[in-house]
């Protein structure tokens, strides 16, 4: 345990400002108010920092962790997921359910020996920490850019494998370079 530090030179005492009331108060009721008005009116020329959502979607950064997506190999169209359940082990919210099944020559779904017959993510539980993406050794599950996932029924928020393999209906824009 280090010695307690006595920061004598490092201390800065904040200013107390004027005492309220009195003649100064009467002056400030006008003077300081006008100063405040000048400050706010000076901002009129500034561009508004808001987005006109939902007409204009808020763009996200490349690392943004949104709605999950299950990936396929581009050339063969086979699923990357081999049903190893590492994402299930890594999930702190316990929102992923995977049931693996064997690939057969007639029914080759994934590139490995096994594939995920059931792959469900309960979006009402998901905290979007991205540990599933980190855990996956095959880059089969990734976090996409989409953040619009609200729905009317909780049962609709349990995303099935088909929903996760499909693209989102509306794409979320990415931030431009330097924005």
């Amino acid at each position, binding site marked *: 345990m280090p010695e307690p530090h006595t920061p004598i030179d490092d201390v800065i005492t904040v200013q107390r400002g004027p005492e309220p009331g009195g003649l100064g108060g009467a002056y*400030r009721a006008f003077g300081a108010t006008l100063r405040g008005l000048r400050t706010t009116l000076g901002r009129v020329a500034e561009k508004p920092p808001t987005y006109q959502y939902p007409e204009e979607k808020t763009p996200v950064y490349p690392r943004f962790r949104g709605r999950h997506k299950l990936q396929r190999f581009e050339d063969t169209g086979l699923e990357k997921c081999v049903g190893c359940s590492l994402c299930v082990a890594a999930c702190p919210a316990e929102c992923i359910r995977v049931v693996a099944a064997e690939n057969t020559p007639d029914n080759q779904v994934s590139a490995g020996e096994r594939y995920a017959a059931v792959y469900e993510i309960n979006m009402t539980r998901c905290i979007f920490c991205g540990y599933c993406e980190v855990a996956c050794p095959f880059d089969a599950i990734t976090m996409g850019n989409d953040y619009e996932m609200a729905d009317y029924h909780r049962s609709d928020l349990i995303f099935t494998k088909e929903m996760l393999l499909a693209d989102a209906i509306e794409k979320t824009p990415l931030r431009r370079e330097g924005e």
Partner: protein
Amino acid sequence: MTDGGLDTPGESQSGARRTDGPAALLPPYREREESISLGTLDEQPVSGTEVDIDGGPDRETELMTINLGPHHPATHGVLRLLCTLEGEVVRDIKPLIGYVHTGIEKSCEDQEYWKAITFVERMDYLAYYFNAQVYCMSVETLLEEEVPPRAQYLRVIHMELNRIASHLFWLGTAALDIGAITMLWWALRERDLMLDLFEMSSGQRLHTRYFQVGGVFEDIPPGWEAKCRRALEVMPARLDQYEALLDENEIWLQRMKNTGIVAREELLALGVTGPLLRATGEPWDLRKAMPYSSYGDFQFRIPVGTVGDNYDRYRVRLAEIRESLKIVEQALDGLPEGPFITSNRKVALPPRHELATSMEALIHHFKLVTEGFRVPPGEAYSAIESPRGELGCYVLADGSAKPSRVHMRDPSFVNLQSLKAMGENSLIADFIACIAMLDPILGGIDR
């Protein structure tokens, strides 16, 4: 008092138990709740009040007990305050907490060490980087793991940006309680600059899980430093604008000056830390007193107040934002090259590209993801300076991959004790200002 017709048999049984059991074992909040009876409130005057000739309570001197919250915009969360009022004057305050109890500390015992980071971040939801830092510090102490210098600097940068964001949120909501609505828009606008930086570096605006045991999750992306410097350039001018609006505003002065004064000795006796304590002139800042995560490398000052009223609390926090800007700038200037997380493969995940080439890396990856890392038995407490004061974390390890106990010493919880000293015998409007200046985060209080 309890014959108001609202009693159930269960409650009278507990009343009977009270006579034979020691009084200290009974939960005090239950007594407080039983001391109010809604059924008799209108007929019987509360003891200690005078009754006028008509038999009704004297409205001038009647003591009235009211609930402020749990759903009240001025309580900054779900804080329930049982206030005894005499007219407009607050005579007694009893904070009742537990409305956002999440059981995070208990849940952590069921998670591997690296997964518990996502849980502890959600306690004090405006200071998530601090929660993760203090938890990681405790685990790193148990593991005797060194954090690389670059990771320490990146942690400092993110924590100080988080402190600015937290203080800005406080400024906006506190000024809103006083009626200065422009401050809310402005403060949230600047807070967005910080959140954009968090999203860019870690992928999430809140609860980023960026800090990991042994370092940070990934390096900052290209362009992050330039964007951070742009935000740092903007901030001083914006702070000047806040001060132009508030510092000498007559309403702000009347509401802030000489209200909610608590003596330094009393705050120290209550265990209060952070800007509340520094506003009384006590320069207690853990970043200086016990430097952690290479805070010793940076030049900054500790803003202190003189009187310890609400105005000093406001000025101290605003001055702290300026000091934080200085720290971030120095950390960006001196950001060392090197790894951003420890190279110990037993603790930190191997780099992604090694998974395809190295069998050993793949085995480590599988072991860490499925089982986590084991921490040798022992206990550790670390403390850091969060935006609200001393944030401590106690971790008890039993040799397995899950913590046996995680406990947080949350500054909001301790600071809440000083609310009675601040608001007692003041006008109810000043009391609202005191809650705002206390800056309680209920997620941290209830955990």
